[in-house]
């Protein structure tokens, strides 16, 4: 089966690009931060520097591993779903479920190894840049030398491999479950329960901010975590909200002509499939919005109090921005990937629409309208999650619920989300439309 995996990867490298990309970015982030452990462990590093390096490595390393897992899992699930035809063929050719599982897990492992190899160079550069940043802000002694050693490499290999193989197992399991058509209702109920739990916990976490002491240095943490949880919870309920929104706008959309008519029906019935796109978008908007504004509030509050930034403040700001940056990049990759997959998967549907009389322009218009609706819902829910974190934090720090910052950063974040969604959706649809309609409907979809 490993031979089959290798052939499968070698012959069709294109469809593994998304997975390789997210695994490589993930491995680079993990190794860059974990190499700080190596730096700290080198002889002659003073204890203060060593402590900061270790904390940074531990916090972001943990986040990183989780993110790598989520993004690989999402790309892999898409990959397996797109190949259901091939998997069916293998089954009918006599492959046992175990053999198929082994093939897919083998592929994931191969890609993980390739990703780590590709990521070593960027990780070393990134790690060096991180160290320099800590040195420039005076948090780490200037004499400390960069090192890339066994801990960084080991963490990279271990996490990436584990995440890939684990994600592959999950994707296969989900695929076989879906094939047998069981537990759909169960999943819906589990989803609602999970969503409610996330919303309740998130709200609780956000509210504890108000009970904190104003001078507490880690005051941002419960607000930030709470806002992540709320974003996650809202993302779980997003599909049904899209359905509701579409039902409300259906009449209006239908009047805008052919494209509107097509989208209205699609979004309402396919709302659950949209969650793959909405989840990363809501997380992206919620997190970047929340953290960037909270950091701005913090900076203003410090400036207003006249106190200089302590090393701890600087450290916290660095970490905040780095973590947000990483999560935002990952969420963006996931958004682009899942949207690309969702749209390219629909070549057959586009073909049927064209054969029923839709012009290519009408199909593109439909994808565009769907993109706009997704962006509006994603940005709206993400903003709710962000505000949920910002308001209590601003209240604690500045005695006023509303932060002074203008909407500039928010507009920027929304613009990135809109651009990623529309560019990916329309670009992919354009590509799909190049296939003649009669051929497109024949392709496995």
């Amino acid at each position, binding site marked *: 089966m490993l031979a089959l995996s290798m052939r499968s990867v070698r012959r069709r490298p294109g469809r593994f690009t998304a997975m390789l990309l997210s695994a490589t970015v993930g491995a680079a982030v993990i190794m860059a931060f974990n190499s700080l452990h190596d730096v700290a462990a080198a002889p002659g590093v003073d204890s203060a520097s060593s402590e900061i390096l270790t904390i940074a490595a531990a916090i972001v390393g943990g986040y990183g591993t989780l993110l790598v897992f989520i993004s690989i899992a999402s790309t892999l699930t898409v990959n397996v779903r797109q190949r259901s035809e091939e998997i069916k063929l293998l089954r009918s050719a006599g492959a046992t479920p175990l053999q198929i599982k082994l093939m897919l897990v083998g592929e994931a492992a191969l890609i993980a190894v390739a990703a780590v190899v590709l990521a070593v160079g960027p990780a070393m550069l990134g790690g060096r840049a991180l160290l320099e940043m800590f040195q420039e802000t005076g948090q780490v002694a200037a004499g400390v030398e960069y090192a890339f050693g066994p801990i960084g490499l080991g963490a990279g290999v271990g996490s990436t491999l584990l995440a890939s193989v684990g994600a592959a197992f999950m994707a296969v399991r989900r695929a076989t479950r879906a094939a047998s058509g069981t537990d759909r209702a169960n999943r819906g109920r589990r989803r609602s329960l999970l969503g409610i739990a996330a919303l309740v916990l998130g709200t609780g976490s956000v509210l504890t901010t108000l009970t904190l002491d104003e001078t507490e240095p880690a005051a941002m943490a419960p607000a930030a975590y709470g806002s992540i949880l709320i974003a996650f919870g809202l993302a779980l309920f997003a599909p049904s909200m899209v359905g509701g929104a579409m039902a409300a706008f259906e009449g209006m959309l*239908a009047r805008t*002509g*052919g494209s509107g*008519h*097509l989208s209205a*029906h*699609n979004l*309402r*019935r*396919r709302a659950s499939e949209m969650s793959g796109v909405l989840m990363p978008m809501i997380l992206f908007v919620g997190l970047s919005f929340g953290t960037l504004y909270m950091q701005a509030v913090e900076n203003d509050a410090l400036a207003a109090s006249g106190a200089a930034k302590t090393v701890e403040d600087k450290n916290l700001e660095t970490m905040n921005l780095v973590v947000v940056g990483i999560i935002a990049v990952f969420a963006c990759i996931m958004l682009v990937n899942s949207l690309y997959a969702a749209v390219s998967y629909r070549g057959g*549907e586009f*073909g*049927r*629409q*064209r*054969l*029923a*009389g*839709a*012009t*290519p*322009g*009408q199909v593109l218009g439909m994808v565009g309208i769907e993109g706009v609706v997704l962006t509006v819902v994603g940005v709206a829910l993400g903003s709710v999650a962000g505000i949920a974190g910002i308001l209590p934090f601003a209240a604690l720090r500045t005695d006023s619920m509303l932060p002074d910052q203008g909407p500039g950063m928010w507009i920027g974040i929304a613009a990135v989300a809109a651009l990623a969604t529309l560019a990916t959706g329309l670009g992919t649809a354009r590509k799909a439309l190049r296939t*003649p*309609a*009669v051929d497109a*409907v*024949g392709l496995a979809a």
Partner: protein
Amino acid sequence: MNPTTTRHDPEAGRESLRLTSVSKSYGTGAGAVTALDRVTLDLPAGSFMAVMGPSGSGKSTLLRCAAGLDTPDSGEVVVDGEPMTGRSEAALTKFRRKRIGFVFQQYNLLPTLTVYQNTVLPLRLSRSRVDRERALRILAEVGLGDRVDHLPDQLSGGQRQRVAIARALVTGPRLVFADEPTGALDLHSARDVLRLLREAAALHGQTVVMVTHDPVAASYADFVQFLADGRLVGRMSSPTVDAVAERLAHLGDTVAQAHRVGA
């Protein structure tokens, strides 16, 4: 060359489809396959033609080129008086959705739309007024009057194909193209579908072009056009199942012979 089947339709006899020396090949160089080789064909309005031939004879390519779904390498295609060659996909689509109806082996219904919504989709896409009464009447005619709010996956294959026929007829097209419309159906459903196609031609004066490999299906047509290696190799009027089957078998022989001679 025109078959003499007369119709009650006033437009009967008017030319509905004309192919002039249409050629089409796929691939390039040594691997190139000639799917159509200078095919010339005239079809008057209101006739029901079946196109038959062995696998790879160019049947589907003929249908695709005639319907403007594929562009021929050379030659001219004229549908209902308008040329189909040298136009953009958008222009062709707009032309098709008013004048041409399609029925495919795989139905090609949109799974997210109900039977009624699928049926009126071409009208919605062309922003035409949707005549609900008329659409429902057509659905009743194809025997789906009680299924209008079902989704395609709640229907049998035969029912789905009848939705596809209703959709093909809803715009009142001049031509209906059917590509193996009974290929995935059981005998009983196939008979229903063929009757509907014949009625479209006989009662409503629509021109029907059907590609099939099934002599039974072909026997419903006014005449059968045989195709082998991309060329027209004969026509049979008032076909019967046995005559078509025999001709097909014979067609296989001549093709094999031609290959031996050619090799």
